[in-house]
């Protein structure tokens, strides 16, 4: 199990991580959710011993990420943010190379990657640079898994990947967890958060909340309304000007308005917006999504 305690890290004047603490349980699929620049990649690099924290500690199954970095590097599988395999080597050669780096053979751990690798196996003679985005990520995942790591650290594995491949990728992650590999995934996509066992919201270097996706949604005390009107472009700003508004933002084809008060009803909002000369207003109370929860938490 992984214990991150009071980790801080600054780059010059920029504080990338500010007192970050959380735990990841054995065999968990843990999601680190946050926008670009939230500090996800820095946290990953500290977690896998590639960077040292300014203060605080990281322990992986009792190993200190700074002191025992050599031992830590044997038990982690890391997939950095950008595709970083060798584009001039074939699929097969990349896999074999990473197996050799960790002193294992492809055969002995093939069962672990079989489900992921089977998608790209037909192209094993193809240079990695000529794969599609989704296939590249599957290859990178196979390479990160080939030595049977205890911790799989995936930094934005699905950024720039099409929707179908993203879905397949997450199905694979589910299967990997079944095989007993603890996984930490960073992602800016809120819809992926729902697929994790537990998630941590991170923004501006701080952890905002940690829980199961279900609890996060259920525990939200704020009410969310989906609002549509004729003037969609000015609508978010108008909603924000309402006295009870916490946040208002475009969400698909509507504007989501989060309010603190449970006394606020759809009618009240409609009346206020009418006074602000909006037309064709529809206001509909909805159940919050993970993304709503994130935005509300970030606002608070």
């Amino acid at each position, binding site marked *: 199990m992984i214990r991150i305690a009071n980790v801080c890290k600054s780059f010059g004047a920029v504080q990338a991580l500010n007192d970050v603490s959380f735990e990841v349980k054995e065999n968990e699929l843990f999601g680190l959710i946050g926008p670009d620049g939230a500090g996800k990649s820095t946290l990953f*690099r500290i977690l*896998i*011993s*590639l*960077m*040292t924290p300014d203060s605080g500690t990281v322990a992986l199954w009792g190993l200190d990420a700074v002191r025992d*970095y*050599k031992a830590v*590097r*044997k038990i*982690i599988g*890391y997939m*950095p*943010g*950008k*595709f*970083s*395999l*060798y584009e*001039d*080597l074939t699929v097969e*050669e990349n896999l*074999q*190379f*990473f*197996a*050799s*780096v*960790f*002193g294992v*053979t492809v055969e002995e751990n093939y069962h672990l990657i079989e489900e992921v690798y089977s998608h790209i196996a037909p192209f094993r003679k193809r240079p990695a640079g000529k794969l599609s985005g989704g296939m590249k990520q599957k290859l990178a995942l196979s*390479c990160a898994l080939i030595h049977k790591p205890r911790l799989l650290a995936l930094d934005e594995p699905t950024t720039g990947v099409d929707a179908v491949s993203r879905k397949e990728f997450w199905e694979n992650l589910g299967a990997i967890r079944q095989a007993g590999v603890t996984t930490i995934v960073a992602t800016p996509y809120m819809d992926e958060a729902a697929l994790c066992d537990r998630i941590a919201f991170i923004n501006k270097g701080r952890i905002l909340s940690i829980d199961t996706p279900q609890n996060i949604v259920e525990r939200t005390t704020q009410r969310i309304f989906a609002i549509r009107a004729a003037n969609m472009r000015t609508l978010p700003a108008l909603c924000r000007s309402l006295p009870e508004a916490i946040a208002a933002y475009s969400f698909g084809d509507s504007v989501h308005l989060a309010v603190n008060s449970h006394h606020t009803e759809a009618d009240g909002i409609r009346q206020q917006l009418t006074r602000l000369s909006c037309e064709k207003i529809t206001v509909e109370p909805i159940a919050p999504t993970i993304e709503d929860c994130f935005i509300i938490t970030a606002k608070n």
Partner: protein
Amino acid sequence: MSALRGLIIKESKHILRDRKTLVILFVIPVALVLIIGYVVSMDVKDTVIGVYDKARDSESVRLTNRIVSSGYFKLGKIITHDDQIESAFRTGSIRMAVVIGDHFGKRMLQPAGGAAVQIIADASEANTAQLLVSYCEAVIRSFALEESVVARPPVEVEVKMFFNPFLNSIYMSIPGIMALVLIIVTAMMTSLSITREKELGSMEILLASPLAPFQIIIGKVAPYLALASINAVTIVLLGYFVFRVPMLGSWQLLFLINFLYIYLSLALGILVSSLASTQMVAMFASMFGLLLPTMLLSGFIFPIENMPDWLQALSRILPPRYYVEAIKAVMIQGSGLAVVWHHLLVMSAFGMIYTIAAVKKFKIRME
């Protein structure tokens, strides 16, 4: 498969699949040797000259024949008037003019002498002019000695050029080209290949793996060691067979010197790459930090003895100088270990320092 073997195989594949770079790596050395050997030759051969024979007697004709048949000069223009000399230089039709004075033959026979020959050279290219004049003087001097009926001069200077009697400049160039090519192939290519992995992001994965720094470094370096060795052999063979550069010393010693030099260049390349984070920076660092000093301060183009003291001191802390000196000593002078041992020692010391610095500088983490 061991991790190190995997790394070497992987790196070799990168090199072999980058066809364009590979071709350049093999073509550059050959092209450099041929270009410098044939084109940039500083040797005097068939230089076009003009002869203005004012005497027109049998002695002056014999002298003219002697000069023209020396192989150094070719008669391009017979000058009949003073004004023609300058215009011939201006049009570039001749590089040097020989003016034989009035009554040349008659004056030669007089004990008091006074037979006059004037040599006029185009000094817009000062070095060439000096070279031409000294060659021409030598021809005239030997002519005068043979033809002279009077007693020989009291002091006779006999010049003999040891090791390179005909002053072939390619003898000097081959070691210099080797120093240059080996630095390019090893230091520049390794530093580029390491910084490429940094740019690509794959270095991040290698660092986060159990690989030790020395494994990553040796894995990178070994294929370039092989490549550079092939280059060294190519250049030596080209010099030996095409330009007849002598190989008087022992081949084993020659290869030992090359191996040491390649090794320390590789260490330099790794050092550069540990300081540079992009290929662009690595490129410029090896160009200005390694290539230029190798060219200018190794004695390959400019003699070190003629440099100001501070440049001489600078050349002493750069390895190429020792390499070029050692190669020349072994190939052209046939020197053995007794002479080059201190070159080898200095190069080993450099190699050691660079290796330690490179391993120390190699970061096991990201910044």
